[in-house]
């Protein structure tokens, strides 16, 4: 029997960076196996939130709890199951697509046979087969993001954290990135991604609206809009901004 992917619960998480309160007592529940969107304008605290989930930053107060099928999992145990792709460029410009995949294969110690099959499938899905020998520094913005995504997807993580994966990506590539994520989630993976494109919220199973480090609201996109009485998420933030 297959249990659903792990979920994450934040309990009043607060984080101050320098003089900025990046997150202010944020409590929320990321249900396992769903595609979650964190939506908010620049500087809302999206990156800080994702970095805390990835274990790269530690909350000043509050707690982050991982659980699977009702049982809590210590961070040390879940860490190998988490994949994270940052917003800033973080691949090696002088390594090719294939070399990046091999590097991640070795870091996660995937068996060769499994790797051969998976990497081909991922390259195909991302339409990067023809570019396997091209260096990351010479890829277009969209291809770069797709390469990063398939690198972290290689070991079939349970939790996938993506920080603005679609920013600076042309509409066609954005579409492809979304297809990639949908193909991979399907109940086996908890995906948490941030975006400042409000129109992408509707593609998520759940959305969390973040502004100035505070959680405004959260829920299913349709129901949430209804509850907030707004035609779009853009309008919500425009209203809040006033």
């Amino acid at each position, binding site marked *: 029997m297959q249990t659903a992917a792990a979920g994450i619960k934040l309990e009043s998480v607060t984080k101050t*960076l320098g003089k900025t309160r990046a997150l202010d007592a944020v409590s929320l529940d990321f249900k396992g196996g769903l595609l979650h969107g964190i939506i908010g304008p620049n500087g809302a605290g999206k990156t800080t939130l994702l970095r805390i989930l990835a274990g790269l*930053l*530690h909350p000043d107060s509050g707690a982050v709890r991982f659980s699977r099928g009702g049982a809590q999992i210590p961070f040390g145990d879940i860490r190998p199951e988490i994949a994270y792709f940052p917003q800033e460029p*973080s691949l090696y410009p*002088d390594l090719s697509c294939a070399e990046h995949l091999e*590097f991640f294969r*070795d870091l*996660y110690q995937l068996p060769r046979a499994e790797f051969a099959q998976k990497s081909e499938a991922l390259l195909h899905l991302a339409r990067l087969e023809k570019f396997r020998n091209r260096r990351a520094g010479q890829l277009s913005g969209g291809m770069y993001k797709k390469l990063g995504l398939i690198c972290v997807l290689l070991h079939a993580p349970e939790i996938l954290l993506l920080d603005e994966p679609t920013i600076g990506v042309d509409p066609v590539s954005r579409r492809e990135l979304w297809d990639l994520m949908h193909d991979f989630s399907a109940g086996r993976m908890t995906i948490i991604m941030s975006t400042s494109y409000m129109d992408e919220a509707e593609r998520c199973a759940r959305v969390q609206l973040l502004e100035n480090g505070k959680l405004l609201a959260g829920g299913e996109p349709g129901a949430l809009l209804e509850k907030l009485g707004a035609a779009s998420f853009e309008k919500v933030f425009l209203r809040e901004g006033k």
Partner: protein
Amino acid sequence: MNFNAARALAIALKEVRHILRDPFTLALGLGLPLLLLLMFGFIIDLNYGDIGLKVQDQDHTRLSREFARTFSSSGYFRLEPFSSEIAPVSWLDSEKASGVLVIKENFGRHIKSGRQGEAQLLLDGADNSKTGVVLSYLAGIMDAANRKFAQTPPRNSPEIRTRFLFNQELSSRWFIVPALATVIIGLLGVLLTAMTVAREWENGSMELLLSTPVRPLEIVAGKLLPYFALSLTGTVTVYLAARLVFGVPFNGSRIVYWTACSVFITAALAQGLLISVVARQQRLAMQLSMISGLLPAFLLSGFIFPVESMPVFFRYFTMILSPRWFMEISRGVFLKGAGFMELARPLSALLAINTVLITLAVKKFKTDIEP
């Protein structure tokens, strides 16, 4: 601590690819050692072999000419006679000569009558190091001249016969070239690794890397390995050039020498890594590594100034610097043929420094991106 060799190798393989694709690193690792060795080997030659010496012979006798010849036959001086109209000091003023020898009138007559012949040697005191060397040659020349002019065989007087062990010819190249290996490895090793971790911070890859299961010790080990191979190749080049180009004899055991080299290279690389881990910025790391690599290797290793003659504070301070210990080993093995037993102290000091540096690099290596 869980250490996964496969992950360390993955980092090492990635580093090898970086090195092979970065002409700067390759040139630094392979070209710089040879360039430095050839430059310093030829330039820093403390034996002055062809010193221009202007000679003003006011005496014009057989004896005065013979006296001047003593200088040229020593092999160190090239004599250039000049007429008496020119003031001797003008040669030094215009830096056209390193020294001026003035043989006074009646030089020959005085010698013949058993008195002292008089001659004057003017030296340029502004060039301290050269003058010091010339003075040391002068003692030998005076000795030869005295023997030549002595009317009677010298009486039985105590005589000191000096024999220089290990470097019979007192060739400064023999002394400097093995020491240069210390300077080159000490500087190069630190420079090579100082960039690596800082670069990952700067180009953002550290954030991605830290979110994977890789551990600090694996990153440190994986980064040490390829740079070790690169530095060792550079060291072999230096060794071969020392032997083949400069003809420096190697009297010791190769096992001892290469063991010590490996330990010293690792210490230099670990120092660079520690800098890189702490600095997080390439520019800062570069500056720190230049200072902490170059200064100890050049000034505090005994390369130029002997450790024994340093002020007390520095004598103890050098103990925490790896170049000082490797200098002792390098000179000992090359010229004296010292073995493990004789070098136990410097070797264990190097090992201790190694352990401390690597431990610090791993401990300071943060697994998060907190500022």
